[in-house]
């Protein structure tokens, strides 16, 4: 276990180093940050002066070395737009994004498991066919379109839900949350549905396929023969084994979910990391872009590690670290 964690920490460091090199080497192609910092009529000479001051005229290696030295002290640079440390800006926006992902995850879990199981048990039922049909639509509509449609139906036409933003939030131990106020919760509904719309159908289909396979397996047939109750067979024996691959895919998909927040947050003007990133790209706020990529890389490594740990707990045949002196 300990060896496994050490390995993962080293892996994380390598991932982040690679990301920082890539981010640094593409920054020249992102555009000229000076264009966003000064007005259009400012002379080229003034721009060069500022560029020198910001160290943008230094050779690549000098800039990268300067960045690494600072990064080791926890300083990922200062955002051009926010004029504050980039890491601090991102951490400020992290709660909004994580709450969005959390809300979407709840929707996914609550809807995908029962629907997946139902459609596997009664594949020919009209409800199953309906669910399958809707899920195809869900997968094929891009998330920003879903989001805009949701806004027009529920905010503009019906006027039931707010159209943008996070609403009122409260600070709990330095974490600004929208889950504890009515206004905050109301603001969460549409963005969470939009965000879950891509992953939810995928999970329904995954659970359905796995469940169908498990229901055909020998041990389930044996259980039927043994005369166990239907509920016990479906929900205890079959579902448990269905969930193993779902957890693996789920871990990876949480990463994807964070990627999709960029679109969802932009449409809903959700003040999170994804929206921040897109804005940073538009403004050529390179320190913020690099810091974002590093933080997201870190989140990916962490979620994968956690998934591997859980997998080990659920499935005892998986060993995380090989014992000395041979394999299994």
């Amino acid at each position: 276990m300990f060896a496994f964690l050490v390995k993962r920490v080293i892996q994380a460091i390598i991932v982040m180093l690679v990301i920082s090199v890539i981010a640094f080497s593409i920054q020249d192609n992102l555009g000229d940050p000076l264009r966003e910092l000064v007005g259009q009529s400012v002379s080229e000479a003034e721009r060069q002066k500022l560029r020198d001051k910001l160290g943008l005229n230094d050779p690549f290696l000098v800039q990268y070395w300067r960045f690494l030295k600072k990064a080791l002290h926890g300083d990922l640079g200062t955002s051009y737009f926010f004029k504050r440390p980039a890491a601090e800006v991102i951490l400020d926006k992290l709660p909004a994004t994580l709450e969005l992902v959390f809300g979407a995850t709840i929707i996914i879990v609550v809807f995908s498991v029962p629907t997946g199981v139902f459609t596997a048990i009664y594949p020919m039922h009209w409800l199953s066919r309906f669910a399958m049909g809707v899920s195809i639509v869900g997968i094929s509509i891009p998330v920003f379109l879903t989001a805009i449609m949701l806004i027009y139906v529920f905010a503009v036409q019906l006027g039931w839900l707010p159209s943008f933003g996070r609403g009122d939030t409260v600070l709990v131990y330095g974490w600004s949350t929208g889950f504890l106020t009515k206004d905050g919760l109301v603001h969460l509904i549409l963005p969470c549905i939009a965000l879950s719309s891509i992953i939810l159908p995928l999970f329904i289909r995954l659970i359905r396929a796995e469940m169908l396979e498990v229901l055909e397996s020998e041990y389930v047939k044996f259980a039927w023969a043994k005369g166990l109750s239907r509920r016990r067979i479906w929900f205890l024996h079959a579902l448990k084994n269905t969930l193993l691959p779902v957890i693996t895919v789920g871990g990876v998909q949480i990463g994807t979910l964070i990627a999709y927040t960029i679109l969802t947050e932009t449409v809903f003007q959700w003040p999170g990391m994804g929206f921040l990133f897109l804005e940073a790209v538009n403004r050529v706020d390179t320190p913020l872009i690099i810091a974002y990529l590093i933080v997201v890389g870190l989140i990916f490594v962490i979620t994968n590690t956690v998934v591997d740990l859980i997998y080990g707990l659920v499935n005892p045949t998986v060993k995380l670290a090989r014992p000395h002196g041979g394999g299994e």
Partner: protein
Amino acid sequence: MRKLIGLAAIAVLGAVLSVSAVAATLKMAYDADPVSMDPHEQLSGGTLQLSHMIFDPLVRWNQELGFDARVAERWQRIDDKTVRFHLRKGVRFHTGNEMTALDVRWTFDRLKRSPDFKGIFAPFEACNIVDKYTIDLVTKEPYPLVLHTATYIFPMDRKYYDGYDAKGRPKDAIVKHGDAFASTNASGTGPFIVSKREQGVRVDFTRFGGYWDKNSPGNVDKIVFTPIKEAPTRVAALLSGDVDFIAPVPPADLDRIDKDSKVDLVTMSGTRIITFQLNQNRRPEFKDKRVRQAIVYAINNEGIVKKIMRGFGTAAAQQSPKGYLGYNPNLKPRYDLKKAKQLMKAAGYEKGFSVTMMAPNNRYVNDDKIAVAVVGMLAKINIKVDLKTMPKAQYWPKYDERAADIMMIGWHSDTEDSSNFTEFLAMTPDTVTGYGQYNSGNYSNPEVDKLIIDSQKVTDAKKRTMMLKKVEQILHDDAAFVPLHWQDRAWAARKGVDIAPIVNVMNFPYLGDLVIK
């Protein structure tokens, strides 16, 4: 009869109610929020919009492009190089300090130090104090645009910005990158005070109780400003009642908003000219005036305005929009495909040639679609265009390199004056003087250069108008560039939020004077 009296009573009551407007909260959404609270940090529309909320200029533009007195109550020209401004007495800053000539001079000196604003103030020699409430603005040469420039002088509270902050840095420093006192704190004479600011998310304003302008009809005592980047979301927020006032309104939604009975749409012909420049250094063909003219004749810019801009613009044949001194009413859009073909033939390019073109895809309204349409139009005179469009962040470095034969540029005159267009877009490029900084066409005409430089010293408006009109005529005849259109401006608000009197073509809504019924 009794019924009639009753009706009259109701009418009177209604009138009384509508007159005595009560304090109201305005929820508004723009596409972006201001970068900084320092009015001298960045010369941009966002900065000026904010400046008009927390500061007041000496004079400001009105809807007819004339000047209204603000903290300067009157002014007169003393001689060729001097304009005297009489400041209003009893104007107080948010701190309670009284605004005096010392504050104006302090602000003027700071503007001269600002990398973004020093260009505009380059013609000025000094700001001299005559007495506590009188200042003289002195220019190096006779200068016609003193009042235009005075719209940029928003007096700052000298005492408030005096001294050092907690980290020992001067409070008045203008810092582009990194935090600074003036970027996050402000004391002006304006109608609003920033009460809370979460950058990129929301800014709250409250009305300044000691605001000098007691005649202002404005009854907004609180503003909640939210940036909403995505146009469809911004429109949805207005239609669903989550916000009261939005700008800009995307052309695709103009009809929808216009027809909605709950909201009002206000549009105005704009001043930003969109053009293509034909690079004569890269393409010998473009050195031939006939080829340039042929291109102008081949491009149906009225069609572009109608079809692509959905009427949200005015087709142009020159740089200066109507209302500017140099606007030449004789110049009309000249789409004529037959003439274009004749000119190509006369120039010896009947069979045409191939060129490259670049345009941004997120800078101007429908910029990429316009470029695509122009490519199709040029194909009709056998000019094959290889078009590349890209986000503005990548486009500007390409523009600076002059990376394509035809490049798109839009320009709004910072001084709201005609000569600014030509100085940047059509004068012979010169790295020392900075003229022609955005002349990627490398059009060069000594007569135009001379007329513009001379016009800068002419304080006689009539004479100057003649000169600037002549410049537009020459540029038109020479087909120095391809004029497309002036982008319109649009704002939309919930009914009852009376934005029509307070918006203007510069897009600095004077929110202090906004009335909500």
